[in-house]
């Protein structure tokens, strides 16, 4: 750029002097906002996690003591396990059902628009409101779910009221609400696939399953990764549905990192330890996201589809 400017002559140097700072006024507002609402809270959280910081008592610097407490805290260790199981299930199930739904909704049939509209309705509702409705449905005596089971001769279940079934039951709600999102993403992906591969496959005598397995699935893979990433980040930090339905119970059977973090910080007022847990949660989200990105990299041959 400078080589082009030089021949212009004497006017150039003052222009060059003034140009570099000229963008700063435009950057500063965004920079201030980012520093104030993202960077500062983060640095401050890390700072708090290095202190014994309890509401109502003086704070003292304790170094990594809060982090050293974590592996010895059975509730935290359990919470990590619950989070991983909960996340795995509530990424996988919406992906499977969402992909299936997308394939179905991609086909042409009467009333498709209407049914699609109905299908994405759960996504539009407020999670807490949904959670309260599901709580009623899960009720072992008065809930509609046990009534439906009784119609087909299955004995009543305890759903969210038993440690063994609570996480699957919560995942059911999560799946019900977020399958439509996956469906929308994947549907977009399918719509972008050219029709030629299908035509040639049909000529070669491929059946529906083969077409799905060897054409649709590889070509929508990049979209599935995006959907998985969004779902994963959402599921790891899921709070509203769990809190509203079980508050981490029964006992601590559905206590995820986020719920434990909430208890530590806002019921026990132990902000230092709570911050340490928050940092760990952040690291977990980053690690899982990195894992997904890595998997996506390894599957680069599907990039042909992403280009479409």
């Amino acid at each position: 750029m400078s080589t082009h400017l030089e021949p212009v002559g004497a006017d150039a140097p003052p222009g060059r002097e003034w140009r570099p700072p000229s963008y700063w006024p435009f950057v500063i507002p965004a920079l201030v906002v980012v520093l104030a609402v993202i960077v500062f809270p983060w640095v401050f959280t890390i700072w708090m996690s290095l202190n014994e910081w309890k509401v109502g008592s003086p704070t003292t610097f304790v170094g990594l003591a809060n982090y050293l407490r974590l592996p010895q805290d059975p509730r935290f260790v359990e919470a990590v396990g619950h989070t991983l199981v909960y996340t795995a299930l509530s990424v996988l199930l919406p992906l499977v059902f969402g992909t299936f739904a997308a394939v179905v909704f991609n086909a042409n049939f009467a009333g498709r628009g209407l049914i699609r509209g109905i299908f994405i309705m759960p996504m539009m509702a407020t999670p807490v409101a949904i959670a309260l409705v599901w709580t009623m449905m899960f009720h072992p005596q008065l809930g509609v779910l046990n009534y439906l089971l009784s119609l087909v001769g299955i004995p009543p279940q305890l759903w969210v009221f038993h440690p063994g079934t609570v996480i699957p039951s919560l995942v059911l709600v999560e799946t019900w609400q977020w399958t439509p999102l996956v469906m929308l993403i994947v549907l977009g992906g399918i719509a972008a696939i050219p029709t030629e591969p299908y035509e040639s496959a049909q000529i070669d005598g491929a059946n529906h399953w083969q077409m799905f397995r060897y054409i649709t699935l590889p070509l929508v893979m990049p979209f599935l990764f995006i959907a998985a990433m969004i779902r994963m980040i959402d599921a790891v930090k899921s709070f509203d549905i769990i809190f509203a339905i079980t508050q981490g119970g029964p006992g601590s059977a559905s206590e995820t990192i986020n719920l434990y973090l909430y208890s530590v910080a806002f019921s026990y007022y132990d902000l230092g330890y709570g911050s340490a847990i928050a940092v760990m949660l952040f690291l977990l989200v980053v690690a899982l996201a990195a894992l997904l990105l890595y998997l996506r990299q390894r599957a680069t041959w599907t990039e042909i589809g992403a280009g479409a």
Partner: protein
Amino acid sequence: MKQKLVSRRSILAGSAAAGAMGLIGLPAWAADMDWKKFAGTKLEVILAKGPRGDNLQKYAKEFTDLTGIQVEAEQVPEQQQRQKVVIELASGKPSFDVVHMSYHVQKRQFEKAGWLTDLSPFMKDPALTAPDLVESDFSAAGLQYSKNDKGQMLSLPWSVDYFILYYNKEMFQKKGIEIPKTLEEMMTAAEKLTDPKEGTFGFVGRGLRNANMTLWTNFFLNYGGEFLDAKGNILTDGPEAIEATKLYQRLLTKVAPPGVAGFNWMESMAAFTQGRAAMWIDGVGWAPPLEDPAASRMVGKVGYTIVPAGPKGQFSATYGDGLGVPQAGKNKEAAYLLCQWLVAKAQTGRLLQAGGGVPFRNSVLNDPATRGGVKMPQEWLQSVIDSGKISKLGLPVIIPVAEFRDLVGAALTATLSGADPATELKKAHEQFRPILERSEKT
């Protein structure tokens, strides 16, 4: 002088209204003290949502007429109110002049942080305090809650909550079963009253982690349990605790509705009011909805009595709330006047009569006129009075009450899905001990 006349007139008007509700007698105040001294002040009050909060909001105008002090009262649901209050007090600039606190959760925390004004000097000042407000009028539990270890009154005890046994009279009559006097009898009676095919069960109570502690501690106390030893060590893994947990486990798994592990008082009350559970142990404060013809099918069918005796005693697990004035508050004297007015006979009398709370003050509880105006069944009032005689604090007075309730509560909930009481309690104890040590060491 003129001002005083106005104040007397308004007191007369107020007591006339109170008289209509069954209150007799002019309050003895107004003699020496000048209620109008802080006229024009504006007070902010933060309340936990419930009948006490309603009581203040409903009658705040009478206080304003009496004192010329404006009251802005805000009710926030209990859990959120506790968090909000703690965060604001910790900031050093609370937005409120009067704080409604839960003793069983917050007493030690507030004391240790030094957030509350010592009200003892105010109580000794005849210009600020009506003659009938004396320490000795509060029940032992009230003083235990409001005083710190130096003997300073840091708050005024407002309303006490005793645990009592609610029972369904019809279900007992139908089976011809006596009202249980001991916990073992209660278990036997509950077994006879349970019929899963009919969907009826003998007992219901809190199974939800944290909330369940209030029920369990009543069993624990009746089995001879004490929360802390002389050195301040927590004692919830001893033989008393194990026995109490076994009873808790038997009751909530064998004779209670399925899913009880997720029940708080609300779900328990629902099971009880729908006639699905014959007995329910919880706080006295839930009677008004049971006796409200518009909301309940149980009117007149509910029996009330004290919690049955255990092998080592008979206690009523006691909880309570009070009114404090923040140390950082700006209108401390005016705020104290409001606290005093709220715990005085007229207001706590109304609270008792509506079933919305039980005064800590003996002079109110023992007042025949106040008792006569109680709208709840006499059995209920009797259970309140009897519980007062066997009252014992239902939770240890420590800072990390919430952790204690969560950890031991989770152990209890775990026993409901078959875990062994002794193992679970041991585990909870191991987790809780270092937390307690950390919180009390400084």
